[in-house]
């Protein structure tokens, strides 16, 4: 999982290494470090923004270790579903079990339907919907799209995807 974290360091040498070590020690992969020496906090500390990949269950131990070392953890952001896309559906969307269509994505574990907007002009007429898919990565998003395509093709629904 990708985690972003805002921390604050004391303004003395060696603090940055002190803050990064626990992430590596627990198998994390550091993606970005923004060390803003010129932007001190009112209490004279230096703000640092970290982004790293780490197994979710190890996060508490990393935070604990940082605190032991005198690093102040200000904010932790977990962004599980990073990638998203909008697709359109045209056809008998609701009457062909829209719940099942959504479930086909949600049950993957790596992708979810996070937005759905349906226009239904009349009972017998075809409806149109925009569906927002989110997934944990680009590859997973593409896989979710393929699953959705297969699901709606079976139901005779037209799917329109972004170029």
């Amino acid at each position, binding site marked *: 999982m990708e985690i972003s974290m805002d921390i604050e360091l004391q303004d003395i040498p060696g603090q940055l290494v002190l803050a990064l070590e626990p992430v590596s020690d627990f198998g994390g992969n550091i993606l970005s470090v923004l060390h803003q020496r010129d932007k001190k906090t009112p209490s004279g500390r230096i703000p640092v923004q970290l982004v790293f990949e780490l197994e979710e269950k190890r996060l508490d131990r990393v935070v604990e270790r940082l605190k032991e070392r005198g690093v102040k953890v200000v904010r932790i952001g977990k962004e599980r579903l990073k990638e998203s896309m*909008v*697709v*359109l559906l*045209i*056809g008998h969307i609701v009457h062909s079990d829209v719940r099942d269509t959504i479930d086909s994505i949600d049950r993957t574990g790596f992708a979810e339907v996070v937005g759905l*907007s349906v*226009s239904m*002009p009349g009972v017998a007429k*075809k*409806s*149109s*919907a*925009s569906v*927002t898919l989110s997934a944990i990565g680009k590859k997973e998003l593409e896989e979710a799209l393929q699953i959705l395509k297969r699901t709606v093709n079976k139901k005779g629904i*037209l799917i*329109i*995807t*972004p*170029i």
Partner: protein
Amino acid sequence: MRIKTGIKTVRISIIGFGNVGGGVAEVIRRKREEIARRYGLNIKIVGIADLRGISVDENGLSEEAIMGLRRGDKKLEKRADMTSVDLIKEVEHEVMVEVTPTNIEDGEPGLTHIITALESGKHVVTSNKGPLAVEYKKLMERAAKREKELRFEATVGGAMPIISLVRKNLAGNGILSITGILNGTCNYILTRMAEEGLPYEHVLKEAQEIGIAEADPSKDVEGIDTAVKLVILANSVFDMNATYKDVEVTGIAEITPDALKLADDAGYVIKLIGEVDREGCLKVTPRLVPQDDPLNVGGTMNVATIKTDLAGDITVIGKGAGPIEAASAILSDIISIYR
């Protein structure tokens, strides 16, 4: 620009004298002086033929005669002794311009016309998609064997240069894919539906009334026309040996005003997009195009984005249909044979 001093006479025949054939005669008349001055060419029309008959003058048909045929106050002669094929074979000329209607089933009569011309030693310039979609490889091999040119810029994107752009101007680049709107009728319908919130059937009728859609619009709205153009691009740019059957095709008849509205809410427009890439994927489907993408052009315009390995993305936009626009591509093909 190099100014040519000597003048070379190029005799041509126009096979098929409908809108495009008439357009070719018109641009040659309009541009006569300029073509002579800039390219050193004197283009003479020595024969015209279509289903109604034939008109031949080995010294060149006069402008009045051609104008008369265009206006309809003079008619092509029905001649028992000469068919269009005989004209191509027997009347001496250098370039045969094949502009009969497209037939994607077997490519005829264009296919026979083109083969006859190449076999009797004429260059061929065509706007007819049928023969190229059906027998691309065979025709190219025949042209190469006879050391004759077979040019077809007008088949894809009308006036919009794409085939010569890729082959000449982008020479040295690897072409990764070509993606675009290659049918002005579909673009017009989708643009109007989005702008006015009108249903498909309504806008189609309107397009038919103003002559943008044909009485039988199926070739356009079902994506067949776009698919045939993709086949030509696949074969000419990506060196494939594809036919219409290799293209996955979905048309625009199911698109609803609601869908266009939902697309707009999400920052997209819906366009009928043709895509071909060097992995062999050939697809015509309605797609979501981001509103700020260069492919988002409205009305009857055509557009194509060419993805290349060196030059990055190149996008061309132009008029996809119309007799003068198609004639523009045909004229530049004729001139380029002699440059």
